[in-house]
């Protein structure tokens, strides 16, 4: 795959006047294999401004989570960034010393995961876990750190926060646990929050509460948020801008209203159609076939095998091109509204 040779696209921001809190430029991630490395993410560029929420959407295996982990410097063993850069407030994180990165992680950039039970230490009270985090970064007394932690738990909607500090993770329900995770991630007021499917395991009503909470905190802290989800409907409710990923690359990026009003890439259109529900007896929308695994991507357009709009030119890999107000990686984009 020679896509890392493609020219870097200028970062498109919904609010061009603002500084990019997090900028991902031409990011390539591969997995080392015996014979040759396998590309997992190719030439991914995305920027998030302070106070902006960007949704990152795509099917499982599209590289969303890897992109997030790369930003955190937490890629698993054998997987590495091979090209491109991730800048946090203008400072490059790629190749940064581990010690320095540790300081930034938590204080400037934070992440919440799908399964809060796996991210919390089951043997430690949540209070001590949060205080530990604060003390690792801030030079304050344990009592002050405790006060900060209680305040944030309270802010995150945990009732009787001071008392609940003494509870263990298993004593919380799934939704409350995710609130604890959010409180723990935001305890140092980071500039960037990456949320990787934080509500997928939760009930819809609980999910609505978490979404509300993140929207509130974003306003309050002017945080930049990347919200990863496979649920376009959810992202539509909370993001300002959406990037749609397919097979390791961004295929469409646009403001949220624009994306839903005029989806340009056939994949985006298929996702929207799949998520729409109708009356009893109506056929369910879907995208035929399934995502090709990394290492088996077609040389041309990676979506072509599942696409209904294939042209002869689709055997060449398309570039992300500007179309109206959207970035679209397709040579035969959709023209009308999403109803077609």
């Amino acid at each position: 795959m020679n896509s890392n040779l493609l020219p870097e696209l200028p970062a498109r921001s919904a609010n061009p006047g603002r500084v990019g809190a997090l900028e991902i430029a031409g990011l390539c991630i591969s997995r080392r294999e015996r014979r040759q490395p396998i590309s997992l993410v190719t030439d991914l560029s995305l920027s998030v401004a302070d106070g902006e929420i960007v949704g990152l959407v795509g099917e499982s295996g599209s590289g969303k989570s890897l992109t997030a982990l790369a930003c955190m410097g937490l890629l698993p063993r054998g997987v590495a960034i091979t090209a491109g850069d991730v800048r946090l407030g203008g400072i490059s994180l790629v190749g940064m010393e581990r010690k320095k990165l540790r300081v930034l992680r938590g204080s400037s950039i934070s992440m919440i995961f799908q399964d809060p039970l796996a991210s919390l230490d089951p043997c430690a009270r949540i209070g001590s876990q949060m205080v530990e985090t604060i003390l690792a970064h801030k030079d304050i007394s344990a009592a002050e750190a405790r006060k900060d932690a209680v305040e944030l738990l309270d802010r995150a909607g945990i009732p009787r926060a001071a008392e609940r500090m003494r509870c263990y993770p298993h004593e919380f329900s799934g939704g409350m646990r995710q609130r604890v995770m959010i409180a723990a991630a935001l305890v140092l007021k980071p500039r960037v929050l990456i949320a990787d499917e934080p509500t997928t395991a939760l009930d819809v009503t609980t999910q609505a509460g978490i979404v509300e909470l993140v929207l509130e905190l974003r306003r309050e802290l002017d945080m930049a948020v990347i919200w990863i989800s496979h649920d376009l409907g959810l992202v539509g409710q909370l993001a300002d801008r959406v990037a749609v990923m397919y097979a390791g690359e961004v295929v469409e990026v646009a403001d949220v209203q624009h994306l839903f009003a005029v989806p340009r890439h056939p994949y985006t259109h298929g996702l929207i159609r799949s998520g729409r529900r109708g009356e009893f007896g109506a056929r369910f929308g879907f995208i035929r076939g399934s995502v090709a695994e990394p290492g088996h991507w077609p040389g041309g357009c990676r979506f072509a095998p599942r696409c209904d709009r294939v042209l002869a030119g689709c055997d060449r890999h398309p570039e992300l091109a500007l179309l109206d107000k959207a970035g679209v990686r397709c040579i035969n984009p959709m023209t009308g509204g999403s109803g077609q």
Partner: protein
Amino acid sequence: MTGVIEMEAVTKVYRGRAGTTAVDGISFVVGEGETLGIVGESGSGKTTVARMLLRLTRPTSGRVLVGGSDIWQANRAERKRLPRIVQAVFQDPFASLDPRMRVGPCICEGSCRVFGRKEAAADVDRLLDLVGIPRRYADYYPHELSGGQRQRVAIARAIAMRPTILVADEPVSALDVSMQGQVLNLLTDLRAEFQLTCVFISHDLGIVRQFCERVLVMQRGKVVEEGDPGEIFLAARHPYTQSLVAAIPRIPA
């Protein structure tokens, strides 16, 4: 009213220090060829209902009738016949298929005991066609398939028994949105072709509205609302149902 499935004041209390009442005295009837949806949040007791219907969890009290006879009072012969009447598709196709069994044998594992090895094995190709999986996949192992394909195999395995009742417990919640439609359309087609009576369990009221003729809304083991899913979707009466409907993230039309 009599139906193919009848639950009469069924209660399930799981033993423990406090004793959790998972299902609290619920009654419902499913008519022949009807699809009943059961929605509710996690912990509302939907899966326990399915398990009692499949004879996997014994009710603490009440009766579960399939075709007029109580499956929990069944004699040996009746118990043996039950899998030919009721079949199930579960949520996680990664957990419900034996990882060491190839797709073909997996599909006819149950049916070859009923219809004989020869007939059941001959049926595999037809079943694979039916669920839209290439015939050569019969020699594959489950790990070689995608989530959607695995769920199709699980469906083929259920249909192989030629059941009249299909219980589907969150059959698409583990799948990508783009795959859910494929599997749901397949279930819709099979339901029509074999005139199946279905119990469809889901947390997604949107899917239930499109797939089911009638819906029960469960909360803490009790049925709080029952009716036409389309009507409930537009005008839910119970506050719990209203909160469920309001919380569904919707794609702008």
